């Protein structure tokens, strides 16, 4: 996840002070308290240096506000329009599996079974979460989870295909 583009996204909407950015980033990334405030300030310094963000005075409580520059806006829009290559832990598994094939690893079947169990567990957890999100009416997160599930389904189909060829 990118703190840089998270900040640019938040400032695209309105000016924020540092602590507001931290709270909004936690919510944007869906993980509470995981982003180090220090990381936010160093990223802000870098964004200011690169002229993507600038200082916008103080708010009524004397907190420093930040805003997006036109260059920052362009940068964010460019990033948003760039397709993202799909990378998760499964890429590591593809690599590991390729290594196993390279050495004719005797326990390939076990590797596949274990990986399959991991994928299925993730599907079960995410299906439960998806149902809850739907009941809560959180359409965006529901669709995101559906996206992850489609990837997991593809992974599982691939593992099944490899297994069917071994058996």
């Amino acid at each position: 996840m990118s703190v840089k583009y998270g900040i640019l996204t938040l400032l695209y909407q309105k000016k924020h002070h540092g602590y507001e950015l931290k709270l909004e980033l936690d919510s944007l990334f869906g993980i509470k308290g995981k982003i180090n405030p220090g990381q936010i300030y160093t990223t802000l310094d870098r964004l200011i240096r690169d002229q993507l963000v600038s200082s916008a005075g103080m708010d009524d409580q004397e907190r420093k506000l930040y805003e997006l520059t036109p260059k920052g806006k362009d940068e964010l829009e460019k990033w948003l329009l760039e397709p993202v290559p799909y990378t998760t832990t499964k890429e590591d598994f593809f690599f590991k599996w390729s290594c196993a094939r390279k050495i004719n690893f005797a326990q390939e079947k076990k590797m596949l079974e274990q990986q399959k169990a991991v994928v299925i567990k993730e599907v079960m957890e995410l299906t439960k979460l998806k149902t809850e999100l739907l009941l809560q009416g959180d359409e965006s997160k529901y669709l995101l989870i559906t996206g992850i599930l489609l990837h997991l389904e593809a992974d599982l189909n691939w593992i099944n295909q490899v297994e069917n060829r071994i058996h």
Partner: protein
Amino acid sequence: MIKVSNLTKEFLQGQERTRVLKGVDLNIKKGEFVAIMGPSGSGKSTLLQLMGGLDVPTAGDIQIDGKYLNKMSEKERTIFRRQKLGFVFQNYQLLPTLTVEENIAFPLHADGKLTKEKNRVIQELIQAVGLEGLHRKRANLLSGGQQQRVAIARALVNSPTVLLADEPTGNLDRANAEEILRLLTVFHRENRQTIVMVTHDIFAAGFADRIILFRDGGIDQVVSREEGDYAKYLANFMA
């Protein structure tokens, strides 16, 4: 609740005996939602048919609620099935010329005429599966998703202790499949029925508490639900 021991089923194909189930052992707890997955011909549907008393095993036992299905007479099995089990099939198996409410009421006729109470249950089920206003519509005029909702209501009308579903979403598109599974999940949460569902679709199986993977007539792997760190998935996905 459901106890399957050393369950074996052979079919005679010409001169050749094919062993479809090879001594399966399986316990399913009361109120558990179990999905059985596996490639075609792995024996998963045969297992469901034996659990539903629709066929008899070559060897081994099936107990439901302490009763041995394989030791019952044909007639006893039929009565047991009607009182304790509900079925949902891939191709819905509705009576096409009967209306929605007539199809749902169908299993009740065997036990005599429809009482006021039973009629109330039917109306409640029609509402619960989201088919209000379609009471009098003939089954053959409904969409696939609607037909499967009728089939679920029919399966539940007798308040069965076990619901057996064979590829319940196999003929449906993803949106309709999801709706059917959402309904099953809601009923499962409310009534704590034991559900055994055979499916080849991981999207459907994901709703279960436990997924049993079949291969070559036996259990290959069992995967149980664990409470996960959901936020982790979202974070990884957006990495």
